[in-house]
């Protein structure tokens, strides 16, 4: 429900935007070159037989011969499927389809296992897809291999069991258990039933076929359309897949059926336009569906649509080239004998009245195009909607062709517009008198130099006329004032009555111009789709004197900086370092070094005065050595401290100190205990 509503809104929007006029082009060489990019095999082969089938079929329809590159690997896969007893119906079907294009196996070399599998499949099938693969597979076997007599035993029963899956609204179900129905399934069902009819040994009951035809017409009731006249079927698989499936089904059904299928012609043309309007799809599946559906429309038993297209939708009145129109089938093949008439040429300005009425186009047999080389005298520049009608020559046509009733094409007629009486003037505002006036030649840049102050006005005026002498109102007419500081202002030049004029009253514009006085460059731009000589002209300079900017007024916006200055090298940064402390003079430090030594010398002198001696130094060897070691150890520790200050770190010092300390402890104890023993002996003695 919601989806339907969304689709309605989308189509409403499409109607309002697209309008009724658009041009559709048949398949051309751009499609062919795109096909080579879209259908790219990976490592020389496609991922599955289904993809290989899509790619090969599309390339075959477009007439591109790439079979030689891929045939070997793909044929290997096909033969593998034929030989394997465990291949599914789906694999068998796609293998047969690929075989039909590549002709890996043909003639009398019938893959008997596959045939028996397909026949068993028909008998046991319950789901629509099983019926589809098995019946279509048997049809392919019958086409490709001679000497096989394949026919469905009880064709009517098969027909009925497939028909049992249909619904009253024309859609089909995939299985009897699942109530969900789909239009895509309807397309598959049509193909399957067409296969049943072609494989039936005897004629199937006509009433069954008639109910099927009514069902088909019911299905067409659910067709959807866009505003530009395209018709399509939409489902969960997407519009392209669903519509392609239906068209395939209808084509095979019409081909198998002898009494013919009558489908509404405008809808067939609409379906053709839908596929042509898709353009070049990027997805492989969409591309295949588009080309396959167009191939079915190109050559079918109900009606073949013809497309009217224009290589160029612009008429240049100066070049006087004829307007060319092509009519062809959807794949670009030749159309039968017909005549093209330009029924109306509706101008976009005046509603309803047509400039041209019922002009017949001439036919050029060499290029197979219709052309219009002479336009009436009152055909002026502008945008038009041309309405073409095609009349088919009923005489000898093998197929039934169908075209649109009327094809509407938007056309632009261009020409050279004359510019006259262009002048620029500075006026005194109160009185309106002209202070200075200059004539302009807008076809080339001028060097006009004007000056004005904020009490005056600037007036620019010119006249534009079409080749037929009517007043021309261009789409774009801008006057740009650019200040020397790169600030720009744009004003529109309005056309009224006979001429175009712009009056700039500087008194009112002072704030808009940001109070910037100085030199302004004047630039005029005039352009339109129908104007072949659109122009951009630098008229000259205006020296403008405006009052001072008051405090509250807006500043001009910042102009974008020059990219070279923004990304260029920046200014050098001067770093400020901590000012190093002032150190004392070297001589002063050396003097004090000397002074420090003085107390030490005093200490030594005092010691000698006191009569210091080393009489108690032990004389026995053992004690002497430990005493020496003791003093040596202390000296070593002090030396270690000096080294620590100069270069060692704390941890190595501590390590060395611990070792020395242990040694010193041991030796010191020995020495001091020896001294203590000696003094005790002295005391007791």
């Amino acid at each position, binding site marked *: 429900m919601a989806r339907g509503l969304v689709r309605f809104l989308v189509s409403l929007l499409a109607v309002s935007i697209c309008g009724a006029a658009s041009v559709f082009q048949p398949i051309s060489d751009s499609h062919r070159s795109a096909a080579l990019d879209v259908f790219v095999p990976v490592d020389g082969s496609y991922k599955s037989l289904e993809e290989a089938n899509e790619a090969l079929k599309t390339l075959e329809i477009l007439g591109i011969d790439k079979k030689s590159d891929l045939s070997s690997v793909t044929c290997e896969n096909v033969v593998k499927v034929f030989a394997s007893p465990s291949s599914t119906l789906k694999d068998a079907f796609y293998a047969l389809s690929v075989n039909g294009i590549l002709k890996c196996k043909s003639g009398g070399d019938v893959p008997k296992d596959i045939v028996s599998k397909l026949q068993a499949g028909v008998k046991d099938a319950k789901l629509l897809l099983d019926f589809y693969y098995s019946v279509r597979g048997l049809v392919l076997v019958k086409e490709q291999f001679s000497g096989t007599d394949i026919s469905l035993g009880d064709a009517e029963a098969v027909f009925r069991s497939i028909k049992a899956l249909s619904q009253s609204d024309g859609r089909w179900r995939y299985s009897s258990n699942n109530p969900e129905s789909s239009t895509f399934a309807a397309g598959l069902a049509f193909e399957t039933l067409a296969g049943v009819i072609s494989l039936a040994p005897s004629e199937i009951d006509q009433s069954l076929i008639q109910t099927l035809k009514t069902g088909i017409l019911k299905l067409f009731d659910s067709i959807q359309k866009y505003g530009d006249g395209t018709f399509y079927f939409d489902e969960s698989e997407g519009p392209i897949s669903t519509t392609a499936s239906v068209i395939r089904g209808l084509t095979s059904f019409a081909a198998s059926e002898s009494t013919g299928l009558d489908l509404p012609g405008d809808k067939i043309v609409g379906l053709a336009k839908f596929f042509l309007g898709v353009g070049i799809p990027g997805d492989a599946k969409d591309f295949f569906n588009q080309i396959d559906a167009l191939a079915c429309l190109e050559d079918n038993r109900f009606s073949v649509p013809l497309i009217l297209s224009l290589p160029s939708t612009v008429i240049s009145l100066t070049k006087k080239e004829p307007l060319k129109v092509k009519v062809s089938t959807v794949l670009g093949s030749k159309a039968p004998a017909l005549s093209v008439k330009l029924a109306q040429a509706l101008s976009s300005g005046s509603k309803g009245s047509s400039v041209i009425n019922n002009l017949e186009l001439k036919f050029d047999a060499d290029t197979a195009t219709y052309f219009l080389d002479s336009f009436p005298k009152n055909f002026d520049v502008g945008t038009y909607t041309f309405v073409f009608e095609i009349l088919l020559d009923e005489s000898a046509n093998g197929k039934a062709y169908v075209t649109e009733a009327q094809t509407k094409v938007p056309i632009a007629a261009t020409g050279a517009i004359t510019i006259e009486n262009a002048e620029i003037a500075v006026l005194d505002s109160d009185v309106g008198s002209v202070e200075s006036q200059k004539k302009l030649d807008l076809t080339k840049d001028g060097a006009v130099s004007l000056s004005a102050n904020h009490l005056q006005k600037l007036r620019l005026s010119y006249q534009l006329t079409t080749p037929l002498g009517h007043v021309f109102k261009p789409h774009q007419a801008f006057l740009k004032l650019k200040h020397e500081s790169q600030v720009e202002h744009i004003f529109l030049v309005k056309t009224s009555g006979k001429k175009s004029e712009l009056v700039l009253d500087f008194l009112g514009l002072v704030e808009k111009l940001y109070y910037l006085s100085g030199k302004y460059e004047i630039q005029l731009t005039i352009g339109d789709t129908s104007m072949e000589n659109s122009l951009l002209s630098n008229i000259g300079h205006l020296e403008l004197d405006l009052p001072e900017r008051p405090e509250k007024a807006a500043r001009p916006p910042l102009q974008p900086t020059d990219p070279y200055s923004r990304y260029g090298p920046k200014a050098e940064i001067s770093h400020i370092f901590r000012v190093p402390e002032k150190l004392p003079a070297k001589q002063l430090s050396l003097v*004090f070094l000397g002074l420090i030594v003085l107390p030490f010398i005093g*200490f030594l002198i005092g*010691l000698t005065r*006191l009569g210091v001696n080393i009489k108690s130094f032990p004389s026995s060897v053992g004690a002497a050595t430990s005493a020496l070691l003791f003093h040596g150890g*202390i000296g070593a520790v002090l030396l270690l401290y000096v080294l620590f*200050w100069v270069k060692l770190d*704390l941890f190595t*010092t501590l390590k060395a100190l611990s070792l020395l300390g242990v040694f010193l402890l041991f030796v010191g104890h020995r020495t001091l205990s020896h001294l*203590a023993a000696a003094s005790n002996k002295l005391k007791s003695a």
Partner: protein
Amino acid sequence: MVKSTSKDAQDLFRSLHSAYSATPTNLKIIDLYVVFAVFTALIQVLYMALVGSFPFNSFLSGVLSCIGTAVLAVCLRIQVNKENKEFKDLAPERAFADFVLCNLVLHLVIINFLG
């Protein structure tokens, strides 16, 4: 009166000097050492006063080294002095060993702080 005060000062000084001469030599050595250390500290303070205390840690390190070693020497003097009844049982060699050890530890810290 000035004459008498100056005479009193002279007498006082003489009596101190004679009393001091009675002290044992080892104590005098220690006293001399203390005086030496204090003088060194004073010269360092004078230098700092002249030049400014920029590497303050060095100044502290130097001064505290002198003061620390002076303090340790005073402790040694107390412990070694025979007239001190508190430390009667402590052998002077033991006190000297403590003095050496404490000095070594002090100088390790001083050298580390010197920078």
